[in-house]
């Protein structure tokens, strides 16, 4: 998850939330909202659904705070599970619109127009590859790559054994690679 100190602070805040402390809830939410939005958007593929899911997740944190058991899981694991479950519960096909939501690279202004176009095309191809994945595969990519969680934390969040998470990530990565090879973005000989 985040660093041990940050995780400990989150756990302390969560304990106060469970006692009905609304100030602690606000602090906890401000510390974790960006990540909740990022995880949800990584799985759902669009900002609208991600916003709804992140907000719903925090409503549940407030409402069901007393269900959190620190002996079973830290706040981060418990909370990311809520976010992921809300994503996976949404059965409708995600409406991918993340090309416009994607960050422009910092050096974009210094690039020549053809390079900007090429960069956008690359991201569009990756977005299409992600769209072809199942929600669980996108969840693995979202947690491990987009949020930078360790494989151990990802496995815990997804309620999987580390080996099973590794297999999920491997299949997701292979599927993306195959799509990008089809679109010519990476060469066939690219090993991984």
């Amino acid at each position, binding site marked *: 998850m985040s660093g041990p100190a940050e995780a400990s602070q989150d756990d302390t805040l969560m304990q106060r939330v469970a006692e009905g402390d609304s100030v602690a809830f606000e602090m906890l939410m401000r510390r974790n*909202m960006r990540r909740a939005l990022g995880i949800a958007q*990584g799985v759902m593929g669009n900002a609208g659904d991600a916003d709804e899911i992140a907000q719903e997740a925090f409503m549940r944190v407030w409402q069901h705070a*007393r269900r959190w058991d620190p002996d079973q899981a830290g706040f981060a694991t418990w909370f990311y599970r809520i976010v992921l479950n809300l994503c996976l519960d949404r059965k409708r096909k995600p409406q991918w619109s993340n090309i416009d939501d994607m*960050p422009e690279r910092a050096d974009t202004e210094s690039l020549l127009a053809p390079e900007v176009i090429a960069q956008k095309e690359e991201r569009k191809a990756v977005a299409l590859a992600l769209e072809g994945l199942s929600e669980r595969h996108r969840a693995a990519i979202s947690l491990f790559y987009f949020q930078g969680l360790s494989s151990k934390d990802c496995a815990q969040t997804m309620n999987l054994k580390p080996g099973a998470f590794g297999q999920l*990530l491997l299949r997701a990565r292979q599927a993306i690679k195959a799509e990008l090879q089809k679109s010519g973005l990476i060469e066939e000989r690219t090993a991984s």
Partner: protein
Amino acid sequence: MTPELFQSLLDCYGADLSRWPDDQQSAAGHFLRQSPQAKTAVDQALALDQLILAAAPAVSDARAEAACRAVLAQTRSLPQSPAWLGWNWAPGGLTYAGLFLLGGLGNVLTRLFSEESPIDLLFSSNLLTPFGG
């Protein structure tokens, strides 16, 4: 570490060895320093890593703030659920409820196939509990 294991870990976790499982990092680093082929494979994996990372969703401060405000507006009037409303009790509770219903059903079926009349079933004192007691 064998070349096959190195490649399979690379295929799974990407080019950044610090993100591989803790118990593999040291051996993988040693293998990488020894093998030019491993270096080439890591460079190729890095290209894919960078493409994936470039697709990470952007979340602006303003958007996160707006989402926080939306939640706060709704939680002001939202009470917290008591802990006992959690679902930890559900498996045990459902088991007991199922046994209770099975007992009742068994009692009714026994009576239906016995020689007692339906009116006895309705007024029989042994239907006061599902187990006939």
